[in-house]
């Protein structure tokens, strides 16, 4: 392991794990040690740099239709309103006749309101370890998420369409397939388990579900990149040995509805910092 590999974000999870922790770290619980510095890291989080760019993008007139998202995109809280939007998505949007998570909704606005092409956005939706800049959509999601800092998750599960997405997401989390017979729940379905040293939240519980969505979008120290919940879901499926979920698809929204819905009533701390 040399300094160069710190930039290799997509180092296979488990391959990297194999190089893990030496016996020297045995004495203390490393996870407790990490937590000690967590608050300090969050205090000055490079995610804020992406937030600033996202705000500029939100307010700028852009795209073939030369309109801003601030004047054309309704995240469910009124036209252009970002405050409290993130903790209330996924929600149902009548104009799209779909339940959408924040990222999917912003993409929808970019396509429908600003005239961008979906395929152009979906071509490279996540920042790679060698990329100096995050995609615009990541900056936008980070800005929108910052508008819900320290607010409680409040996914409208009373809406039958949202409820359907929630229940379908729950079934998706339990779906076992692929060469290793894995489902999301293989790792995230019970309390108190871990992979190597990494604690695994149980997504079926409020305490576990909030851990799954807390800190996303997040600044990932590995590679120094900004990544969203959409990426987190994408990379889980990679490790699950599944094919790739299509970007901003219903399957991903369903899972996020399940996880965010189970987090209802718990406080979202805003864009985070991740290992």
């Amino acid at each position: 392991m040399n300094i160069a590999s710190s930039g290799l974000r997509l180092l296979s999870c488990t391959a990297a794990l194999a190089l893990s922790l030496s016996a020297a770290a045995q004495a203390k619980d490393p996870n407790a040690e990490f937590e000690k510095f967590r608050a300090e890291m969050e205090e000055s989080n490079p995610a804020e740099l992406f937030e600033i760019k996202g705000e500029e993008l939100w307010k700028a007139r852009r795209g073939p239709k030369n309109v801003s998202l601030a004047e054309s995109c309704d995240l469910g809280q009124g036209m252009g309103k970002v405050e409290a939007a993130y903790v209330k998505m996924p929600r149902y949007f009548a104009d799209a006749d779909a339940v959408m998570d924040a990222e999917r909704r912003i993409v929808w606005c970019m396509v429908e309101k600003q005239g961008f092409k979906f395929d152009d956005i979906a071509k490279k939706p996540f920042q790679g370890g060698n990329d100096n800049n995050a995609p615009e959509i990541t900056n936008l999601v980070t800005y929108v998420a910052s508008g819900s800092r320290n607010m409680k998750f409040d996914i409208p599960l009373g809406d039958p369409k949202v409820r359907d997405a929630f229940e379908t997401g729950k079934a998706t989390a339990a779906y076992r397939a692929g060469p290793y017979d894995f489902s999301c729940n293989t790792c995230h379905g019970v309390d108190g388990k871990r992979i190597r040293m990494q604690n695994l939240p149980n997504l079926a519980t409020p305490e576990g579900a909030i851990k799954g969505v807390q800190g996303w979008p997040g600044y990932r120290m590995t590679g120094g990149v900004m990544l969203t919940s959409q990426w987190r879901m994408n990379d889980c499926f990679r490790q699950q040995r599944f094919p790739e979920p299509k970007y901003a698809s219903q399957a991903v929204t369903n899972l996020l509805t399940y996880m965010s819905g189970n987090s209802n009533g718990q406080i979202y701390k805003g864009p985070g910092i991740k290992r």
Partner: protein
Amino acid sequence: MNTTRRTVLKGATASGVLAGLIAAGALRPTLVLAADWNKAAFEAKDTAGALKGIGATAASESKDLMLKVPDIAENGAVVPVDVVSNIPNTSSISILVEKNPQPLCAQFDFANGAVADVSARLKMGQTSLVKAVAKADGKFYTAQKEVKVTVGGCGG
């Protein structure tokens, strides 16, 4: 300006003059130049070379120099470090990671009310000693602590 900048920082009176010049618009504070970067010290491949580069070959350990680093870093790409010097008249603090290919990470010179207290985030390629060096009244002081670097994990 470049040649005088670091010199003027040494004395408060001279800094006052500089501040006056800045206020008068004669010098813009944005005009920092990379040319006075201490190439020899920063490009040194080992700790001895880096210490020599900053003139700190004869440094003594001091309890008044506090180095706060994690025992175990969650990620070697971002290791938080905090250095506080309670040594009177501390004018600069340097931070080194012994086993990095280029150990010297940063040097900060203080003036005009700055407290000798700095935090930064460092890359660490492997488990290593982290060293802080403070300069006060022309003398050098050090403190060091080991940080274990763990790798891997799909989490987060």
